[in-house]
């Protein structure tokens, strides 16, 4: 159990002298608090697995330091760091039974027999593996094999942190929900630091109390699911999280007004000074834009189609060249495809070169 600090931590597979743009993980400084449930979210190839492997010690960083509870562990081996990690594809030891697989990490550390048996029995019960304990692990389904991998990660009670590298990819959806809630329950019970890598936002938002979003080797935002939803720090977070993603359109911003296509939208805050020469965009989540019958005060749009998501309907509309998604209020109907858009000014954000600009109250 430990607090994990990353200090200017970066990694390049081409060595430290490679240009910073080619780093798999651009230098980052951040803290993972003890007992937190974190999700590391981002598309494939954004550096999540690299960051995870740096923390577990499978790869040695080309720059920066890793501290566990203040102690520098950068050059220590995985074993010394006392980390548990579960991989994307099941890793099982072919010649062993399920029970022996679960006992393996404890046996290697010289834990007394009685203690091993107790832990293995506990974990097996938790993962519904008890009936299979004496079977050869090779003959189980992929689901069960991954449960064994999970079990091996969970079986040690004294680990500094448990890292999950997209562990539920091979598991079918029904079981995915069950296992995820089990992990969550386990997290509450054991007070362990857990870091869960995924590219699935539902998985990240349901598992974690802090979501760390990565994009192109950079940590772009770290916050609670609500923060990520309401105030994305980067346009990438805006459209990666949420379904459909945030609407991001180029605009001219001046003080409390934003101008799209010649139409003025009121803003909640004052954006007096914007970086010169930056690309200015405004971002607003579809949940905070409503379609309405066309009217003179509204930004006029053309409806292309309406997606019915069950609880809510979203219209895909076009404003000039820009595409928008907007909420369709209950009972809304228009004779043709023309509509107007109603914005909620409190949720319209301004971005300069993709980064959020804080307005003045």
């Amino acid at each position, binding site marked *: 159990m430990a607090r994990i600090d990353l200090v200017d931590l970066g990694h390049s597979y081409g060595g430290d002298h490679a240009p910073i743009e080619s780093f798999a993980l651009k230098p980052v400084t951040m803290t993972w608090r003890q007992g937190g449930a974190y999700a590391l979210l981002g598309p494939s190839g954004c550096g999540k697995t690299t960051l995870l*492997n740096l923390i*577990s*010690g*499978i790869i040695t960083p080309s720059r920066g330091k890793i501290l566990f509870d203040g102690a520098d562990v950068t050059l220590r*081996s*995985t*074993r010394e760091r006392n*980390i*548990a*990690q579960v*991989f*994307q*594809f099941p*890793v099982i*030891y*072919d*010649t*062993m039974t399920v029970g022996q697989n679960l006992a*393996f*990490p404890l046996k*290697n*550390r010289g834990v007394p027999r009685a203690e091993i048996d107790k832990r293995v029995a506990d974990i097996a019960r938790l993962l519904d593996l008890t009936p299979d304990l004496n*079977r*050869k692990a*090779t*003959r189980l389904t992929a689901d069960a094999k991954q449960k064994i*991998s999970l079990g*091996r*990660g969970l079986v040690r009670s004294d680990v500094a942190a448990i890292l999950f590298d997209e562990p539920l990819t091979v598991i079918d959806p029904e079981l995915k929900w069950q296992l995820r809630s089990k992990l969550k329950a386990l997290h509450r019970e054991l007070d362990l630091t857990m870091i869960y890598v995924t590219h699935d936002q539902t998985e990240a938002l349901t598992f974690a109390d802090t979501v760390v979003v990565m994009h192109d080797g950079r940590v772009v935002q770290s916050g609670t699911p609500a923060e990520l939803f309401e105030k994305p720090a980067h346009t990438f977070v805006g459209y990666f999280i949420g379904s459909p993603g945030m609407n991001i359109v180029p605009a001219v911003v001046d003080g409390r007004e934003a101008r799209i296509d010649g139409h003025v939208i009121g803003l909640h805050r004052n954006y007096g000074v914007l970086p010169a020469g930056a690309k200015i965009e405004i971002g607003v989540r579809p949940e905070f834009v409503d379609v309405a019958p066309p009217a003179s005060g509204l930004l006029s749009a053309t409806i292309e189609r309406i997606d019915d998501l069950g609880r809510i309907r979203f219209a895909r509309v076009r404003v000039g060249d820009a595409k928008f998604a907007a909420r369709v209020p209950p009972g809304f109907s228009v004779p043709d495809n023309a509509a107007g858009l109603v914005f909620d000014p409190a949720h319209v954000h301004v971005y300069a070169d993709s980064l959020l600009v804080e307005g003045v109250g």
Partner: protein
Amino acid sequence: MDKTINQKAWFLVLPVFLVVAFSAILPLMTVVNYSMQDTFGNNQFFWNGVGWFKELLDPSTDLGSRFFASLWRNLFFSGVILAIEVPLGIIVALSMPREGWTVAACLVILALPLLIPWNVVGTIWQIFGRPDIGLLGYTLNHLGLNYNYVSNDIDAWVTVIVMDVWHWTSLVALLCYAGLKSIPDAYYQAAQIDGASRWAVFTAIQLPKMNRVLLIAVLLRFMDSFMIYTEPFVVTGGGPGNSTTFISIELVKIALGQFDLGKAAALSLVYNLIILIVCWVFYTVMTNAGVDRSRKEGVAS
């Protein structure tokens, strides 16, 4: 669905039938034919039934005693070289680099002995071991070891075994290396996380993942060593005395030296049968080792 009846299709398989018949079945049947007859030359043959087989399997006769003596030599030889080459091959494969230009260099060096023709290997070692001009023989004798493979049984055996190990360990090593390379990195990473020792990684991951290639390596090496002829023939000629006379050497002596076609044919058939049976038993046991257990489990659960 209606089947089209067209007997002309048989002509399509005819070439295969002919090739197999002339290359395998007819020569084999000729051997079977010889094994049932006796000849005194002049192309005259006399029916002998299973007489040669009876004689062959009866150790009190001359033919039988020669057969059994060479059979034990062969089995001992195969046992020894497997016991050396398999562990040695695994060790070599484990200590090979995993990436970089050294991989290619190692592979080339390992493959070299495999590319040398059998009789050249024999000649190399025949000269290498000679006490008068051979580097090995000369050195050993000057170090005070009385080494002479022409006159001493044990020296002859050691030479033949070391030669085979030199020639064929590479094959086992290359097969094992291929097996090792196919293990995904995640296994090693997981083992690292689980705190496994080097030995535990070997027994829990590497050895189980290599078992298919090891099966092939053992089969190949068994068959090859059981049929060995050229190398010991070139080095020792089966001597001193009969101490390195393997079945194949005995067979050639009977067939071409004494021109006893009947005896030689009977011996060939038994020889062939032994190899087939051993390989079949070995393969079945190795591949079913896992399957059987799961079947039993299936019934039990």
